[in-house]
C-alpha cells in the first residue's frame, strides 16, 4: 500500500497540477461537425454478415459458417481435427455453455476443459500457457465495420483463454452481429451498470511487422483465429 | 478595364525579374490595367520565418500602407500571397485598426494563376510549347492557398504541350528559405529526389508557380549540368522572351 508520506507527496502533486490547469480560462469551442453515419448502419442483416465475414477474412481469420447451432459441434470437431488440436480450454460464457463442449470432448477423445476445473490462479495459468493448444470462447458482439469480436471479460470469461493458447476459436451467433463499435460500447458502458473490468476488441490474429517491416501473424497473442458463425436459435426460427 | 496592382516578390525583383515581366504581360493579356507601386519592397516572409517578428510586423504595416487601397493585388508567388493573406492578420491581431485592414486586404490578394482562372476567367492565354511538361505543387500554393486546379487548367490550355503527371508532385522540394542553407544536407536530398521524379516523368520541362521552388530546382539542375528545364508558370505562359533575363 502507499505509505502516508508518499500519499502526501502524491496529493500535493495532484493539487499542484490541477491548480495550474484550472488557472486557465477555458476557450469557447466551435461546434462539432456532424458526421454522416457509417455505411454499415444502413446495412441489412445479410449485408452486415457479409461485411463481417469479408473483414474477418481480410484479417486472415478463418471463417466457418454453419446454418444452425445443431451443426456447431460437428464443425468444431472437424476444425480441431484439421488443426491437430487435442487440448482445449473453454470459457463458461452464455454462448458456449449450452453446447457442453467438455462433454463433447469426452465423446471425441479430446480434452476440452472448462476454466472452472481450475480454482487456483497459478494452476489455471499453467494450463493456459503451457498445456492447451486452443482457447474456445463465445463473443458478446461481432462488429461488422472491421470484423471485430467484442468480448466482455468476467467470471465466465477469463482473459487468458483468448490470448495465451496458440489458437483462439470464437463462436459467433448471428444475433450478436452489430454494425459499429458504438452499438457495442453503448451497451457495455451503460451508465449506472456495473462496467466490466475488461472489454476487449479482437480483430484477427496477433501480428507485427517490427522486424524489417515484414508482417507476420502470431507475435504474442494467438497465431490463428477461427470464427464459427451460426444462426442463433431466434434467428433460425425466423 | 480591371485595375490590378502587381506585387513583385523580392526574390523575383532581384534575381528573376523576367518572372515579374512575364506576370505583367499575362495580366495585360487578360485585360487588366496594371499598376505597380514603385515603393514596394519585401512582404517580410524571410524575417517572419526566421523568427524576427518585429521586423515582419513593420514589413506588414508597410505593405498594407502601400497596397491598402488597391482593388485587386496579384503576385506570381504563392508563399508571399500566403504571408499577406494568412500571416498578416495573425501578426496584427493585437492592433485592431491594422488587423481590420489586414483582414480586408486578404480578400483582395491573389496568386497569379488563381487570378487568371478564377477572377479574370481566362485559361487560354496565347501560350504555346512543343513538348512534355510536368507540374510541381508548391507547398504554400497547394496546402496554404488550396490552389491546384488553376495552374493545371492553364497548362492544359497551352498549344502543343502535353502535360504528364509528376510522381509525388505535392512533396516539398526542399527550399524552405533558411532551411536550404542551414540544413542544406537534407535540402539537397529533397531537391535531388524532386529532380529524379522530374527526370522519370518523361517531361523536358518542369513548371512551378513559386519563385523559391524555381530557384531551388534550377540551381540544382544548373550545378549538375542536367539537360532539363524548369520555368515559372508566368515565364512559360508569356513566351520565350520572358525566359531568362
Amino acid at each position: 500500500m502507499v505509505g502516508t508520506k508518499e500519499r502526501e507527496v502524491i496529493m500535493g502533486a495532484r493539487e499542484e497540477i490541477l491548480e495550474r490547469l484550472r488557472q486557465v480560462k477555458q476557450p469557447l469551442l466551435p461546434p462539432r461537425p456532424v458526421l454522416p453515419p457509417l455505411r454499415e448502419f444502413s446495412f441489412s442483416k445479410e449485408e452486415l454478415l457479409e461485411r463481417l465475414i469479408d473483414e474477418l477474412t481480410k484479417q486472415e481469420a478463418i471463417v466457418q459458417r454453419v446454418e444452425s447451432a445443431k451443426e456447431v459441434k460437428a464443425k468444431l470437431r472437424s476444425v480441431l481435427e484439421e488443426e491437430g488440436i487435442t487440448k482445449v480450454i473453454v470459457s463458461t460464457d452464455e454462448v458456449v455453455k449450452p453446447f457442453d463442449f467438455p462433454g463433447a470432448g469426452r465423446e471425441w477423445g479430446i480434452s476440452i476443459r472448462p476454466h472452472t476445473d481450475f480454482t487456483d490462479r497459478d494452476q489455471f495459468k499453467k494450463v493456459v500457457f503451457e498445456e492447451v493448444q486452443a482457447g474456445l470462447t463465445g463473443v458478446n458482439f461481432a462488429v461488422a465495420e472491421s470484423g471485430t469480436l467484442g468480448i466482455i471479460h468476467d467470471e465466465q470469461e477469463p482473459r487468458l483463454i483468448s490470448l495465451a493458447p496458440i489458437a483462439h476459436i470464437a463462436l459467433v451467433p448471428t444475433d450478436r452481429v452489430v454494425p459499429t463499435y458504438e452499438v457495442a460500447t453503448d451497451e457495455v458502458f451503460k451508465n449506472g451498470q456495473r462496467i466490466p473490468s475488461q472489454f476487449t476488441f479482437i480483430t484477427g490474429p496477433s501480428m507485427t511487422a517490427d522486424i524489417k517491416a515484414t508482417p507476420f501473424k502470431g507475435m504474442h497473442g494467438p497465431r490463428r483465429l477461427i470464427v464459427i458463425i451460426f444462426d442463433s436459435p431466434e434467428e433460425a426460427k425466423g | 478595364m480591371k485595375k490590378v496592382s502587381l506585387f513583385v516578390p523580392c526574390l523575383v525583383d532581384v534575381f528573376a525579374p523576367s518572372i515579374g515581366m512575364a506576370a505583367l504581360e499575362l495580366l495585360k493579356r487578360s485585360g487588366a490595367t496594371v499598376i505597380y507601386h514603385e515603393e514596394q519592397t519585401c512582404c517580410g516572409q524571410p524575417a517572419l520565418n526566421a523568427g524576427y517578428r518585429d521586423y515582419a510586423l513593420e514589413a506588414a504595416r508597410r505593405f498594407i500602407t502601400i497596397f491598402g487601397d488597391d482593388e485587386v493585388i496579384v503576385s506570381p508567388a504563392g508563399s508571399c500571397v500566403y504571408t499577406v493573406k494568412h500571416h498578416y492578420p495573425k501578426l496584427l491581431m493585437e492592433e485592431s485598426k491594422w488587423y481590420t485592414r489586414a483582414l480586408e486586404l486578404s480578400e483582395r490578394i491573389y496568386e497569379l494563376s488563381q487570378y487568371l482562372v478564377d477572377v479574370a476567367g481566362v485559361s487560354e492565354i496565347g501560350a504555346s510549347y512543343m513538348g512534355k511538361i510536368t507540374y510541381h505543387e508548391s507547398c504554400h500554393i497547394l496546402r496554404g492557398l488550396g490552389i491546384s486546379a488553376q495552374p493545371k487548367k492553364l497548362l492544359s490550355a497551352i498549344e502543343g504541350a502535353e502535360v504528364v503527371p509528376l510522381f509525388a508532385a505535392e512533396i516539398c522540394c526542399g527550399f524552405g528559405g533558411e532551411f536550404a542553407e542551414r540544413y542544406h544536407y537534407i535540402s539537397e536530398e529533397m531537391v535531388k529526389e524532386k529532380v529524379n521524379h522530374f527526370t522519370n516523368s518523361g517531361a523536358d520541362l518542369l513548371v512551378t508557380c513559386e519563385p523559391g521552388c524555381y530557384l531551388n530546382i534550377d540551381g540544382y539542375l544548373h550545378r549538375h549540368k542536367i539537360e532539363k528545364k524548369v520555368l515559372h508558370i508566368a515565364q512559360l505562359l508569356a513566351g520565350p522572351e520572358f525566359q531568362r533575363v
Partner: protein
Amino acid sequence: MKARTEEFNEIAQHEVKNEYARAFLGLLPPIIAMRRVQVMGSFPDPEKALALSQAIRAESVARLPELLEQFEKNAVEAGAKVLWARDGKEARDIIVNLARERGVSFVTKGKSMVTEEIGLNEVMKEAQIEPIETDLGEFIAQQLNRPPFHIVGPAINVPVEEIRDLFMKMGILKEDTTDPVQLGYAARLYLRDKFHHIKLGLTGINMAVAETGTIINVENEGNIRFNKSSPRTQVSIMTPEKVVPDMKDAMHLLRLLCRSCTGQKISAYVTMDTGPKKRGEIDGPEELFIVIVDNGRSIFYQDEKTREVLRCIRCGACLNTCPVYTKIGGYPYGFAYSGPMGQILNPLLLGFDRTADLYHACTLCGTCRSICPAGIDHPALFLYYRFREVEMDARFRPKRRPAKERLFFRIWHMANKKRARWDFSIKLSRVMMKKYEKEGWLSSMGQFFTGWFKERDFPAASRQTFREWWGQRKGR
C-alpha cells in the same frame, strides 16, 4: 532516455547517408501514408471525420482539469488507484516503490513513450528490478541500446543480421536464421515465459475516458493484453492530456488513431479496462494503479499556443508524411519523440537551448498539419518558437541567435523600409557578387551561403531589378 537533441546535425548528416535506413524511409512511410488515405475512404465523409477527431482533441485539452477529475473519480469508484506525479522523479519513485513493495525482480513493459521520456528503465535497473520491453520493436531497440527509429516501428531499420546476432548472444535463438518470422517466433517464446511469471505488468495508456474511468490500449501484438491479464498487479502510466470526454468520442478517435498510425481500420487488440478484476475472476490484476505524470505539461498548458501540443494522440502520421523525417529517420531527433510531433514537444520538455535545431529544421511545408487527426498546426508552432527564441523569452530557455544572423536581419530590415535603401543595397551586392559571377550564375560566394552552394548554383543579381526595368520603361 538521455536526450541527444543537441546532436541533431551530426546524427542527421550521418543518417542521411545511411543507405539501409534510406531504403526503408523511402518505402515504408509512403506506403503507410498511402494506406492511410485508402482506409480513410471507409468514412462517407473523410474530411468531416478528420474534423471531428480534431474537435474532440481540442475539447479534451480545453476541458483538461475537469475531465481529469471526472476520470479519476470514476476510475477510483471502479476500484483503481490513481497516483499523481509532478515530474519524472516522482513517477519513477512511485513505480519503483510499488515494485519493491511487491518483491518484484522483473517487470514486463508494454510500449510507453512517457516511460522513455522519464528514463524509467535506467532507474529500475539501478533498483535491481529488470524492466523487460515486450513490444518486439522496443525489445530489440532496448537490447541494442538505441533510441526509437520510428514511433510505430522502433527497430524497423535494424538489419536482420544484427537481430540474429543479438538473439543468439542472448540465447534466445538456437538456429542461425535471418528470417524475420523465425526471429519473431524466437522472441515470442522468450517473452512468453516472462508473461507467464510476471507479478507486475507496466503499460502506457492511449486514452483515458472521463465518463467511465476506463483506460484504453491499442496494440497488434498482444503483449499489452498479457501485461493486463497475467500479473496480479498492473501499473498503467499516462500524461494528463490522454483524457477524452466519453466512450463515443473514444471510439471515433480509435478509428482515426488506427487509420493514421498504420493504415489499419483497427489494430488487432483494443482493451478497455475499468478498475481491477472483479471478485470471482480468475485472471486480471487484483490491483490497478494509474499513474498520471505531468513533467511540465501543466505549465505549458498555460500558454494558449503551446497548449495545442497536448492534443497529440501519438499516431505518427506526421512522421510518415514529413519530407524531412523521411530523409533522416528517428535518431537525429534525439529523444523519445521524433518527427514533427517530436519537434513541437521536445523543445517544451527540454528547453529551446537544447533543441533549437528541432524547430528550425522544417520547410513549413504543412503536410503534417494537413493530416493531423488532432488538429495541431505544427508550422504555426515552429514559427511561434522561433519568435520566442528571437525575443529571448526566458520561459523557454532559448539561446541567443548568432550575431551574424541578427546583423543580417537588421540590415535587411533597414533596407526594407525604404525603396531607395533597397535599391542601394542591391547595387552594393551586385558589386560584391561581381567577382564570383560567371555568365549570370554564382557557384560560390566565398564564405557566404556555403550550405546552399554545396550542391546548387544561384543566379547572380540581375543587371536590373524589376523596379529598375519598370522605371526605365517609364523613361525614368
